[in-house]
């Protein structure tokens, strides 16, 4: 039984999302972006499953997608806890910070010196002060994490 063109196109879209997610996991070094890419892969799979469900006229695919959704939520929770732990150890969200699995006589892989970024530091708008300037503790201001 040949699937309908809609189904086929849906499969193609699912494949694209999956492939793009794979590229993102393999290539990007920021842990968060890696996990976003993993979620992209799951999206691709969901689209494929729904397409097949549409083709077969069966609820099974959609059921599976519901559970995929659930599991993705759990996975995101646990994974982000791990990312925070990793960040606590190394101070960076860099997957290349973890290299202890290498051979004992190989040196650490270090980035070569990058050219200066021409992305200026973001200038956040400064509001004109209205009223009394609240007292801001210098230390606390420094301690505060920025995005």
């Amino acid at each position, binding site marked *: 039984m040949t699937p309908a063109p809609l189904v086929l196109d849906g499969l193609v879209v699912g494949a694209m999302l999956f492939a793009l997610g794979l590229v993102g*996991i*393999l290539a990007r070094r920021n842990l968060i972006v890696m996990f976003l890419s993993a979620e992209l892969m799951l999206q691709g799979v969901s689209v494929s499953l729904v397409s097949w469900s549409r083709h077969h006229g069966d609820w099974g695919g959609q059921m599976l997608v519901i559970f995929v959704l659930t599991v993705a939520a759990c996975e995101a929770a646990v994974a982000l806890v791990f990312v925070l732990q990793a960040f606590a150890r190394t101070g960076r969200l860099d*997957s290349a910070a973890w290299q202890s*699995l290498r051979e004992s006589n*190989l040196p650490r*892989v270090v980035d070569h010196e990058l050219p200066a970024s021409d992305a200026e530091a973001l200038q956040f708008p400064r509001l004109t002060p209205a009223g009394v300037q609240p007292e801001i503790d210098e230390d606390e201001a420094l301690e505060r994490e920025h995005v």
Partner: protein
Amino acid sequence: MVDLDPKTLLVLVPALPLAGAILTVALGRLLGPRAHWPAVLSIAAAAVAAVTLLVGLGREVASSADHDHAASPVELTPVTLWQWASIPDAYQPAAATGLDLGDDLAAKAEGLPAAIPFTIGIDLRLDPLTAVMLAVITCVGLLVAIYSIGYMHDDPGYPRFFALVAAFVFSMAMLVAASNFLLVYVFWEAVGACSYLLIGFWFRKPSASAAAKKAFLVNRVGDFGLAVAVFLLWMTYGTLNFHDTLLADGSPLPGILGMERLADPSGYVAGGVGTAICLLLLLAACGKSAQLPLHVWLPDAMEGPTPASALIHAATMVTAGVYLVARCAPLYVACPAALTVVSIVGATTALVAALIGTVQNDLKRVLAYSTISQLGYMFASLGTGTLLGFTAAIFHLVTHAFFKALLFLGAGSVMHAMGGVIDMRRFGGLRRVMPITAATFLVGSLALAGIAPFAGFFSKDEILASLHARGWPDAHTEHHDADPHEGHAGLDLPAAAAFQAVSFRSESDGSAGGADESASTFRTLYWMSLFTAFLTAFYTFRAVFMTFTGPTRVPDEAGHHAHESPPVMTWPLIVLAVAATVSGWWLFSTHALADFLAATPSLTAPAVAATATPHAFHLDLALQGTFAAVAGIVLAAAGHFGRRSDGPQPERYLGPFETLFAHRFFIDEIYTALIVRPLEFVAMLSAWFDRSVVDGLVDFVARIPWGIGAVVRRLQSGLVQRYAVAGALGTLLIVLMLAWRLRG
């Protein structure tokens, strides 16, 4: 006298020292200062057994000679201890295999059975030659062992020394009692090994271990000759046994020196193969008996303890070569060319060694060169090929054993008293310090120089007589024709005349030219030997005068040692001195030794026996010899006393020759340049090859996995994403391959 079966006694003679050696090795440490007892007792028991055998066999020879007026061969049936090897059908003679070995071998091979097994049994034989050798070995060995109790007293290797001496006596006894060429080879090597161990006894001294190595390696050259000779003997005669044996089917297999072959006029192969065998055996004898060109090891062997030098390098081991040639007399007699070579080698060695000995300043070196020289005399005598020559050589062997051992032990006594100093220039006038040693040493020197009535005179006289007989055959033929039977020590066969065809002195064999040539050679050899006798006396008495006469000088190393040696060392000296004095006269006058030896089966071969001459005392030759000896002594005395200083200094008279003699004719240097240096170079090349190429190859193979690993290891970077990329690509590759297969 112990009344035992001769076969048992024969087995006991080597077995007891072997047991003594094993016991000394096992219990040496336990026994401590008494470690000499097992060895000394066992050698003493063996000596008793050997003398018993000698006496018993002598009686038998005497009784058989009385009956027949001739010496019939006397030998004991060989005792087989056990069968060492037995390979059936090991050898098909050339006639069966169709090999072209030349006429001699082909002719010989026709007489051999079709298929011969290779059997080697541990066979011991007893005949007059063996009995004499056994007696000499064990008696001298006993005296040396007793002497060593005092000499090696404080040495830390005390038990090892006695074990080695006992082991040596065992090996030498087996060598002379073996009835089989392969056994001879085995024990030839064994005595070489004992010699190596004894020369290098103080192995921590580099010169001693180097000397031991040199001795062993030079002996190897000789052993090579013996090995090839054994191969040729096997090929020619189909057996290695001396005695006759039976094959499995009952047919006889004549031994090389068995009665059957000895009685056969054409029993021995002449020509190329025969001469080759004889010359190879001569090479072996040269190695062991330190003849030119393999004599270089004996002077260096003086690094060993003096009792070892006395036993091995004077009395017994070096005489193994003489024994071998005497034993193989029938083979040599069949090849006259080989006999001439033997004589030439012997006489030349005697002369060269005597020349070198005149300029030596080390007492032991003088004695070493003297040994080489005297052994040269024995070979010169053996090379005459006459019964007189063979028996004279053995006679000289016996007397030489006594007086040379005496001289060496005396030198040891001197060395012991002088605290290890043996350079004659550093001491003098020791007759006041050690009178007994001086007296016995003088006796030995007189015997060595050949002054009547000491032993050396008679034996040297016989040697000179045998050379003279070959050089001037006419002078001796008259004797033979005049007294055909009286006091005849030859085999009285009716067909004795028939064998004159193969004897040397007959002019009827048509090779008169050959006889004349050899005669002129022997004339030269005779004059050489006479000159050597002069030199012998000279250097011997030079040593005596330098050591024992003149003002008494003792070197500092002597310390409190400078006194006469203890009785355990002087009694053997006295015994040997008595033997050196008496034995020559007694043995010669009774002709006991000559008659006894003539009964040896090897020497009863018709070819040998036909050369027998009646016992005559050649006064003219005796006078020539004595004159030469006295001239030597007088010259030595003149040189010594005339100068009133360190002793005769032949350097002044010799001029340029002095360098030649002092450097031992540069033979060592020639060997180093010709043999040692090229071998060192080859060894260096081989070592380089082994290190660079072979090891390099192995290392290269070992580095391949390392290299591969070094490349592959870089994949393990620790970056998980790189692993993931690899995994993804791999999976896609598999999927692609599957898709390719499944398309269409």
